[in-house]
């Protein structure tokens, strides 16, 4: 069971661990601000408040997409590492190797976009990367894909090291998931939720990375040997199998922060249960097979795959989400929680995840998908759960850790101002996307008709608020992490911390 001690000794960051964790977090918050600025630029361009040429817009869109997905993965990997290392042996070299390979991959991607003018978006859907129509070359696309391969190898190294640690303690991944307790038996109350969630991520995302490794290399073969023509539908299936699991893994890595931290702020235990294990087992299977909901509009896709996509969409999101949100609310109920920044962000993340998943499930329904999928409804959904869900989970840990530097959860006046600014901005920004989707405003368009610009303008205002709040968070978190821990910071009890 997760500790109720606010800053337990086994979470203390020392030496190389502290440097590595700080590198992850400082890099991530800086990248978030930069990527948000790109996003704001695009929204303001659509609102006609800024003029950005279309080719540059698609470069920005490619950078924003790849950058945000990658940074979400980077920061939530740090969340998983931070907690998992308490329960199993993780090697620092694997955590650092992931960071180094991520940075090398990011450099390739940045160079391909801003030097080579790549603009085929983060999904690199075949054959667009090789059809640059003079805007970018195939070699540029190859550099972009090499960047992805480097990032994928880094993730794989980290997952394999985590798998080794988990298997060493629990025997195999099935036991780590708690499959032996699904139908009976006394559940070990000390079986860590962090291990269950990490195991799910390792299983699903390793398969996703395998698919990505296949399709990326085949795309490179096509670039250098154009006579080898790929089956575009197969390539798209593999890309979304990889992409869906990669971005979904960020939720499942991020939610570990909720499992670990929420009980400390409520002061109530958050025990593991059979429904919890069932939900993670189901989610492990569902997240692997749900990806066809990205291809519901592909008429050539086999019908049975589309049916699986819809059916599993309705089932995939619910188990873990329901168990987690219900568990969190139960934990929160009559707990006397003190509302500091980490606890606020944890509860916000539950809301962001819960509310963000609903439009996704609606869009995962074939009849809705036909009219919604190419609209801004989709960015509305994923910005909702990423901005107000996953990022909030990661920031809860960041704030928690900077609290350990001063032995108290952070809750300054500026924090109290920054949080509502982020929340209000996030809501305005995401609802503007969702409303634009309702109005059938298409997504991924550099130029918008005048009649579409109202929601663009509202969204831009929301984005400005979010960027301001994130800029503050980035500075506050970076400065907090760079502070030396105060003597005796570890081991502060819940009661002490909650005041």
């Amino acid at each position: 069971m997760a500790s109720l001690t606010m800053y337990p000794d086994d979470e203390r960051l020392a030496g190389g661990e502290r440097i590595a964790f700080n590198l992850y977090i400082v890099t991530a918050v800086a990248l978030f601000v930069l990527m948000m600025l790109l996003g704001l630029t695009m929204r303001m361009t659509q609102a006609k408040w800024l003029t950005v040429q279309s080719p540059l817009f698609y470069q920005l869109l490619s950078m924003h997409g790849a950058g945000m997905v990658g940074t979400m993965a980077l920061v939530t990997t740090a969340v998983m590492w931070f907690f998992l290392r308490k329960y199993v042996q993780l090697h620092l070299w694997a955590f650092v190797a992931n960071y180094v390979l991520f940075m090398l991959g990011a450099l390739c991607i940045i160079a391909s976009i801003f030097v080579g003018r790549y603009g085929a978006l983060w999904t690199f859907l075949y054959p667009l990367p090789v059809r640059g129509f003079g805007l970018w070359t195939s070699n540029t696309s190859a550099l972009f894909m090499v960047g992805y391969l480097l990032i994928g190898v880094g993730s794989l190294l980290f997952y394999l090291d985590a798998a080794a640690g988990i298997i060493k303690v629990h025997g195999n991944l099935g036991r780590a998931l708690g499959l032996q307790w699904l139908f009976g038996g006394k559940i070990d109350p000390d079986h860590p939720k962090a291990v269950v969630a990490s195991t799910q991520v390792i299983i699903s995302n390793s398969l996703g990375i395998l698919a990505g490794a296949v399709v990326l290399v085949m795309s490179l073969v096509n670039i250098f040997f154009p006579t080898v023509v790929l089956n575009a539908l197969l390539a798209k299936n593999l890309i979304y199998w990889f992409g869906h699991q990669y971005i979904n893994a960020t939720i499942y890595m991020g939610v570990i922060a909720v499992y670990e931290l929420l009980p400390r702020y409520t002061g109530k235990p958050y025990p593991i249960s059979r429904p919890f294990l069932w939900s993670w087992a189901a989610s492990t299977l569902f997240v692997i097979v749900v990806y066809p909901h990205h291809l519901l509009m592909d008429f050539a896709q086999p019908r049975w795959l589309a049916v699986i996509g819809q059916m599993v969409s309705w089932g995939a999101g619910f188990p873990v989400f329901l168990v987690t949100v219900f568990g969190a609310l139960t934990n929160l109920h009559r707990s006397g929680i003190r509302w500091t920044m980490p606890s606020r962000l944890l509860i916000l993340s539950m809301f962001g995840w819960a509310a963000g998943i609903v439009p996704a499930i609606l869009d995962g329904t074939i009849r809705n998908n036909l009219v919604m999928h190419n609209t801004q409804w989709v960015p509305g959904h994923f910005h909702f759960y990423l901005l107000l869900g996953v990022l909030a989970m990661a920031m809860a840990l960041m704030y928690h850790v900077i609290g350990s530097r001063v032995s108290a959860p952070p809750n300054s006046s500026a924090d109290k101002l920054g949080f509502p600014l982020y929340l209000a901005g996030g809501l305005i920004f995401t609802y503007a996307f969702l409303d634009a989707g309702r109005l059938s405003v298409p997504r991924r368009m550099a130029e918008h008709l005048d009649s579409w610009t109202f929601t663009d303008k509202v969204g831009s205002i929301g984005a400005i608020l979010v960027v301001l709040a994130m800029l503050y968070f980035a500075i506050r978190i970076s400065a907090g992490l760079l502070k030396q821990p105060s003597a005796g910071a570890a081991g502060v009890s819940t009661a002490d911390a909650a005041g």
Partner: protein
Amino acid sequence: MTRLQTVVRWAGPILWLTLALPPVRHALESTLTLQMLVQIPLLALVGWWLRPFLPDRAVKVLNAWNRGGISGLLLASFAAMIWMLPRTMDSALNVPWVELAKFTSVPVLLGLPLAVSWPRAGFVVRGVFLVEATATAFRLGWLYLVSPQRLCSNYLLGDQQLAGNALLAIGAAMSLLLAWKLMWGHVDVDGSHRRSHA
């Protein structure tokens, strides 16, 4: 040493000689699928079985350059890469010295390094190697299937596509096997058991 142990010790050279016999060689090179997925893996197995012939001193020297088995696995990967190319498999049929190169390099540069390095490799290194091997099976299978022309002058397009399908099946089988082993099997994470025999 018992008779059985002697036979096992000489299994590598015996298999090598068997594979080199003209009727066996011609049979295994009659189709691309057989050459790629039966003959070359068997030659690699010869190399694996040559491990007992390596003097202890040589093993010690090699181990100094083979931390965690990484160098050896890289060498094996590069050697495998060469013998995956249709051009080299094609040339082996047309040019005698390429055939000789295959019969020597696959055991010595692929099988033997694998035998020396695998027990030294930890979970992560083995994992990367196996994931990459699985991905390579899928990629090559896909390539052979979609290639619009014959990649080998000695083999027909249908044979090439059969090899492609077989590679996809191998990739799928490896994925399922790995998934089963990790989910429900017993995994020697430390490699302590194997290392003690290395």
